[in-house]
């Protein structure tokens, strides 16, 4: 028929109409339709071809769907666990040239699935708002506001002066300037430390903290002085508690702060920070400040980054499933006996995993029953497991059929 009439190509409008139709039918994911829209523009198509393409894509999509009963959990676990054998054990890797190190590879992956409360290298990527992201100077201001500055870091000396009966802090001008603080601020902060350290007197860059004598105490105890000394030395003057170091790096057109140590809550409150993009790699911290959905995303991102960095190709769906399982209850659950495995409903499954005896004893006391819904239980009693072809049963009684 093409030979008779001149070949007619569909217009963009027609394509658009088709795509909108497709979208309304809701059989294909939006992302796929969007991709299709992009690709179709590159070709000249007849209407028949367009229909054919859409038909074939729909068919291919239907073909790619998971089937009911598929053991997606086991496959996800294998897909993440198997490459673990190929990962390096090297803990440290230098992000960039000479900056701080990051835990990567297998140890980090274990940290993620363990949902550790204290990851070995917590870091934040602090993005800046429009005012601060362009100029080095502005970025530095924000950095100074984030980086924790303790007395120790800005003082020449911190000493116990027995003659004064207190702690003498000799502040360093250059260091203070570098950190963006001044002696007044230091004195003020020291005065505000609770519980009270004692009387704070300032003479230019020299600050003396004299602990107060409690009732009944006649002279200053050395032990008490020592305690106060420690407190003065570690007193937080500026920045966010826990943020050990801040680095300014150029990332494309903008400046980004990288931190060693995290304090997301504090940083999000700091002026100049873009709160919509700033993130931490500390899963629990994210869960507390931004909520469980954010924590899920961080688990996914962190795990994916670790695998990508090692050059291991793992489908994102596997990682998503693990993250979803870890966060399904609204709280972060570890993969292991203190989390998901310890909360399994079946006694047999729990006993077969770890701490066998305790689970059995426990079950005997409260009179647990096992409904044999899980995999381990059914393996133990020697039945087909309820997965894949085993999750299908025939509800037909042969004897009844005979009667007919």
């Amino acid at each position: 028929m093409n030979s008779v009439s001149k070949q007619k190509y569909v217009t963009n409008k027609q394509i658009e109409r088709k795509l909108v139709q497709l979208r309304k039918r809701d059989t294909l994911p939006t992302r796929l339709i969007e991709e299709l829209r992009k690709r179709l523009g590159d070709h000249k198509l007849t209407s028949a071809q367009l229909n054919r393409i859409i038909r074939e894509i729909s068919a291919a999509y239907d073909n790619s769907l998971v089937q009911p009963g598929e053991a997606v959990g086991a496959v996800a676990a294998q897909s993440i666990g198997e490459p673990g054998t190929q990962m390096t054990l090297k803990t440290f890797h230098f992000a960039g040239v000479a900056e701080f190190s990051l835990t990567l590879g297998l140890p980090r992956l274990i940290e993620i699935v363990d949902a550790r409360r204290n990851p070995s290298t917590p870091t934040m990527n602090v993005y800046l708002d429009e005012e601060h992201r362009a100029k080095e100077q502005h970025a530095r201001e924000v950095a100074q506001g984030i980086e924790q500055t303790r007395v120790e870091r800005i003082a020449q000396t911190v000493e116990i002066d027995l003659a004064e009966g207190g702690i003498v802090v000799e502040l360093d001008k250059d260091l203070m300037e570098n950190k963006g603080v001044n002696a007044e601020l230091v004195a003020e902060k020291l005065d505000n430390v609770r519980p009270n350290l004692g009387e704070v007197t300032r003479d230019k860059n020299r600050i003396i903290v004299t602990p107060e004598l409690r009732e009944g105490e006649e002279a200053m105890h050395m032990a008490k002085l020592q305690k106060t000394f420690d407190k003065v030395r570690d007193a937080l003057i500026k920045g966010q508690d826990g943020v050990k170091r801040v680095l300014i790096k150029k990332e494309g057109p903008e400046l980004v702060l990288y931190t060693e140590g995290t304090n997301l809550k504090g940083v999000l409150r700091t002026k100049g920070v873009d709160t919509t993009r700033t993130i931490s790699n500390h899963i629990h911290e994210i869960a507390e400040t931004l909520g469980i959905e954010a924590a899920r995303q961080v688990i996914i991102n962190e795990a994916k980054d670790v695998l990508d960095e090692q050059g291991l190709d793992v489908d994102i769906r596997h990682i998503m499933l693990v993250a979803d399982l870890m966060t399904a209850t609204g709280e972060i659950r570890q993969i292991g006996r203190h989390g998901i495995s310890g909360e399994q409903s079946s006694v047999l499954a729990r006993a077969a995993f770890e701490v066998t005896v305790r689970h059995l004893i426990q079950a005997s006391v409260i009179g647990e029953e096992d409904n044999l819904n899980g995999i381990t239980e059914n393996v133990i009693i020697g039945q087909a497991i309820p997965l894949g072809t085993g999750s299908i049963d025939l509800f037909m009684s042969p004897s009844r059929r005979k009667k007919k």
Partner: protein
Amino acid sequence: MSVTQVITADTYDEDGLPISSGLMDPKLGTIEPGQRCKSCGNRVGECPGHFGHIELARPVVHVSFAKLIKKFLKAICRRCARLKLKDESFQKYKDRMDAHWEKFGHLNQEIADEVLKEAGKATTCPHCEAEQYKIKFEKPTTFYEEKMEGSVRLTPTDVRDRLERITPDDSYMMGIDTRVTRSEWMILTVQPVPPVAVRPSITLESGVKSEDDLTHKLVDVIRINQRLRENIEAGAPQLIVEDLWELLQYHVTTYFNNEVSGIPPARHRSGRALRTLAQRLKGKEGRFRSNLSGKRVDFSARTVISPDPNLSINEVGVPSEIARTLTVPERVTEWNIEDMRELVLQGPQGYPGCNYIVRPDGKRIDLRYVKDRKMNADGLAPGYVIERHLRTGDVVLFNRQPSLHRMSIMAHEVKVMPYRTFRLHLVVCPPYNADFDGDEMNLHVPQSEEARAEARILMLVQEQILSPRYGGPIIGGIQDYISSAFLLTRKSSIFNKRQSCQLLASAGYREDLPPPTILKPEPMWTGKQIFSILLPKGLNLSLKARICQKCDVCQKEHCPHDAYVLIRNGQLLAGVIDKKAIGAAQPESVLHRIAKDYGNSEARRFLDSICPLLVVLITNMGFSMGIDDVILTPTAIRQIEQILSDAEKEGSKLVQIYEADELQRLPGRSLEETFEMKMIEILARARDNAGEVASQQLGLDKHAVIMTGTGAKGNALNLAQMAASVGQQAVRGARISRGYRKRTLPHFIKGDLSPQARGFVVSSYRKGLNPIEFFFHAMGGREGLVDTAVRTSTSGYMQRRLINALQDVKVEYDGTVRDSTGEIIQFKYGEDGVDPARSDHGKAVNIDVIIERVLSEER
């Protein structure tokens, strides 16, 4: 429950007969074949075994419950034995517990713990106002009450007395389900004696009977129990009775758990600690993990594997000896009865034969002991089942440990072969992670039609070509297959008619040759042509080969390195075939497209035809690597020496700067760290530059370079180490620094920081390492070995935990992902419901491929 009381602390008498009311009383069940059980009258297989009991002279604490007993003692009143909770708070907890009961049908330990904790705080009883004392618990089984006048020991009798008086309502709140148990049962007055089947005695070759550890322990219990009873009855002094009571407690405790902290484990005469009940259950070798979660199976075989490139990827070569031992049950029907008779006549020794006949009444005939098989063959009738030998074409499961992913167990078709190893195609090595340096693999024969169907449809090798991990092929060419593919398809390779025919014949191609590319002086075909013949018709695809030099502007099919692979309508028009095109674990490769667009069968056909061809090609051409592959020209060697000595100078300058304290500290690094980092950088650069010189020298005419370039084996670093310089050896990510005081070896002066003194290996492998370099190299190498060993165990444990946490998760019919309790984990799997194994490298649909296909077809 008990069939007999056990009184005698002995097992057998002088004649070797079990003593009645002893630990091996025949009433406890039989373990000897042929014997009938005195209790149930069944024989070995049917008799389940029966418990006996020991009546303890005095009650003792059950160790495993000791902690709970402590909590109970604290929580109940010492006078009225009521739970020390005020009524209102009792009610509050009760409501919660009731709710949980309603929902799950059992008690909640957490609520019970809260109850016990709160009740334990009360200093006076809210019910009878009696004063309460602190309960002290001394591990593992002793309790004290701390009164004003001092601690008073609570004997198990006292404890039991209190626990007995707990009301059912209180029990319920404390987490004791009175339907199944009672709190005073945590104190034992009677000890169960497990059936003999649980603790069989072993007769050694010398005729000496050796008893099980549990029996030994029971002997101890009975003996002490007896002494205790006698002493009590004789009115012995309190002190002696208490000592014996304590001893009884010890034996009962270790009977249950021999690893209780606070007491020494009971030992065998040889000094080995006894393996009692708790030890039998727990751990990797315990009952749960070793016998319940994992079971030994019949119909399996294990032997060494070896390669066979002439098999199909779906096949496995099975030694005839194994084929004669493993059997498949086959039902005799009217249609196969003649064949079955033939098998029976062949018997267990002949092949193909048959090992057993199962008659319709269930009786098995073992053909090994049948003299005249003719009778059995004639007696065969429909309804009989014969267990025939494994035959070529049967489907079996093939497995290599560690079974890290589902491709570690795949179904293969049997091909019975001579000799004694399993044979498999090399292309399936990657999924199994197998090599042939002595690896062994297991084989299992499915015994039912359903199992065979599932194996064939779901587990066959060709069905596993696409990995669920990333939606790409995991099966594909390795090593020489890749080198050979490169040799075949590079521009310079042309073949005359004889060669072409030989190659194509090995691939199983039986049709006409296409028109030759070169006509004179004789007809010649290009390697690309020959490769194209085996490609599926209509395949369209383009990709960049592994040898791609990553030029700034890609010239596509006009690539000077022939690295742009272009396939149009099933013809390889440009580019060489290497790892990127047919390698294992390469997404977006030729193999991937074939498997995805033409199906698994076509992919298998492709591999089955191309692989033998490649083997023949590389065998004919010859492909090897020798030392001349890494020998450089004198100029290049001089150049490399120059680079290395320059680096050395630079290094010593750095040392000077460092020692003069003039080094600029990097932010956040100590001076020493800064120095080390700079040094490492200098040396790494030197090695890379040296390697660069070497690789410029070594061209594609060297086989070693072909291997690294195509991805067949090795990498550029390996080449550089062989040809130029081995480079810096590292331990724990830093230069080697330990050994002697302030120096690595006594050959250096103290504090020497120069490259050579800290493990820099200047020599190449070709040149050879001097003794010092060799030593450093060994240090670095050892670390690598240790690393691998540690990694396997840590990653193995992570995998076990992942599997355990995720194994119950599956997709339901409504498309949701749920765990075994039906809790929803995801509403739609992976947010789009796409199975990664059926996806196209993670994407649901490859739109480009479809568009291209539609357009090319309609043109």
